[in-house]
């Protein structure tokens, strides 16, 4: 063993986590190195009880606990839950139950008469699946319809595309996880709403900007809302990076500011703030982010997609 034992070696030995060979190596080092031996002894003391007199709670605590027992036992007896004692609990009133049940039925009936569903589900479809992609517990198949509530997860070297007609296409790269939370059409206006949570991975998406669509993409750090744009996004544990190629969006951090995007600008979202990564005029890196993501995700993409 070279040099002194590291903290993880000592802790591993104390916790019994080291394998036999490693443990014997560390033990032989400890027997030869007084410094490490001393550190090991100190660390062992951190998990042994502190010395000192064994203290006890004041006698009054015992008295109070037993007084509680007496009073509780008396109450239990009075309430009739002790064997042989008649219950004094209020009796179930059938008439009250009937009134409540009638009210509930009338309410449900009224809802059925008045209410017409305002929204229809906007069906999403998997237009391309490469490698292993799961939809909840099943494998996602090309052409499969995806309803709100489904969790899509791509594995290593895997990617997938989902589309809604020709107005929305989203391509997700490897190790991406997306929960489709909303996907519906307003019956009256024909407007389409999408909401998805992307908690890791990378996507590139085109949402039609003809004005009849609204989408929100949520990440662990914030959200992006727009009524049509082309964006690339990468979500990692510390931040979400977004590049808006076309159109505009509103980006907000979970616990901080929000801002409206400019075309061609890149943004970084952390839990506390949204920042512009580079000005549009200097945004070579932003375009690189977009182009690289496009290249990674839509290379040889021969489905019905609309991304260019």
């Amino acid at each position, binding site marked *: 063993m070279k040099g002194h034992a590291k903290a993880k070696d000592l802790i591993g030995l104390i916790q019994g986590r080291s394998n036999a060979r490693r443990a014997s190596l560390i033990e032989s080092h400890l027997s030869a190195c007084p410094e490490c031996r001393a550190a090991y002894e*100190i660390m062992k003391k951190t998990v042994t009880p*502190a010395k*000192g007199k064994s203290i006890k*709670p004041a006698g009054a605590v*015992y008295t109070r606990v037993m007084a509680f*027992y007496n009073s509780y036992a008396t109450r239990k007896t009075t309430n009739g839950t002790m064997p042989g004692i008649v219950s004094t609990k209020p009796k179930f009133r059938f008439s009250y139950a009937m009134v409540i049940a009638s009210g509930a039925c009338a309410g449900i009936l009224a809802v059925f008469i008045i209410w017409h569903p305002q929204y229809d589900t906007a069906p999403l479809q998997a237009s391309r699946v490469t490698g292993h992609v799961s939809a909840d517990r099943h494998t996602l198949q090309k052409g499969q319809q995806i309803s709100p509530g489904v969790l899509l997860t791509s594995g290593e070297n895997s990617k997938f595309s989902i589309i809604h007609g020709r107005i929305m296409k989203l391509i997700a790269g490897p190790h991406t996880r997306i929960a489709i939370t909303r996907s519906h059409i307003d019956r009256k206006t024909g407007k389409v709403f999408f909401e998805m949570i992307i908690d890791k991975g990378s996507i590139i998406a085109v949402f039609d900007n003809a004005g009849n669509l609204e989408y929100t993409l949520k990440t662990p750090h914030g959200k992006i809302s727009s009524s049509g744009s082309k964006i690339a996004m990468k979500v990692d544990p510390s931040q979400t990076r977004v590049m808006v190629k076309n159109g505009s969006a509103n980006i907000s951090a979970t616990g901080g500011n929000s801002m409206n995007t400019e075309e061609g600008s890149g943004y970084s979202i952390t839990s506390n703030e949204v920042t512009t990564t580079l000005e549009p005029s200097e945004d070579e890196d932003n375009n690189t982010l977009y182009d690289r993501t496009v290249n990674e995700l839509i290379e040889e993409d021969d489905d019905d997609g609309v991304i260019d």
Partner: protein
Amino acid sequence: MLPREKISSIYKSYSGEIFRYLIKLSGDRDSAEDLLQEVFEKFIVYTSEKEIQENKYRPFLYTTAHNLCVNHLIKQNRTHPANFDEMEDSLKTDDTYHELMVADELNKKIYSLMETMDAESRSIFIMHKEGGLNYDEIAENLSLSSRTVRRRIKNIMVRLYDGLKNEGFIS
């Protein structure tokens, strides 16, 4: 409902170690006594409704003590004394407590370093250190996996190692 004598005997068997755990976690004798009382009150109520095996008494008491104390610390948003010298001064009238808390410099430093850690991890560590509960027992008490318990204890030990090294306890 358990008979009075049984409750009395259970109190006498376990109140010491539960109190020791509570006082180490809360850092305050009065709170520890109040919490201990509450733990046993919950035990009385629970055993009056449901039957639990004798070998589950101790896990039940630890689980309840953990939940109550961690909630208490969160509710109080408690700021412990930044160093144990202050605590020592404030407790000079209580010789027994004083001796326990500052029995030696090393333990004083260990508890001082732990003050910056979250209440739940601290609770797990104290159960292990002072209560002598192994990872499986703590895991069962707190509905965690043994692996999680071991990892949390390891994380605290790593932080203690760094802290003790900075303070010169480890060269």
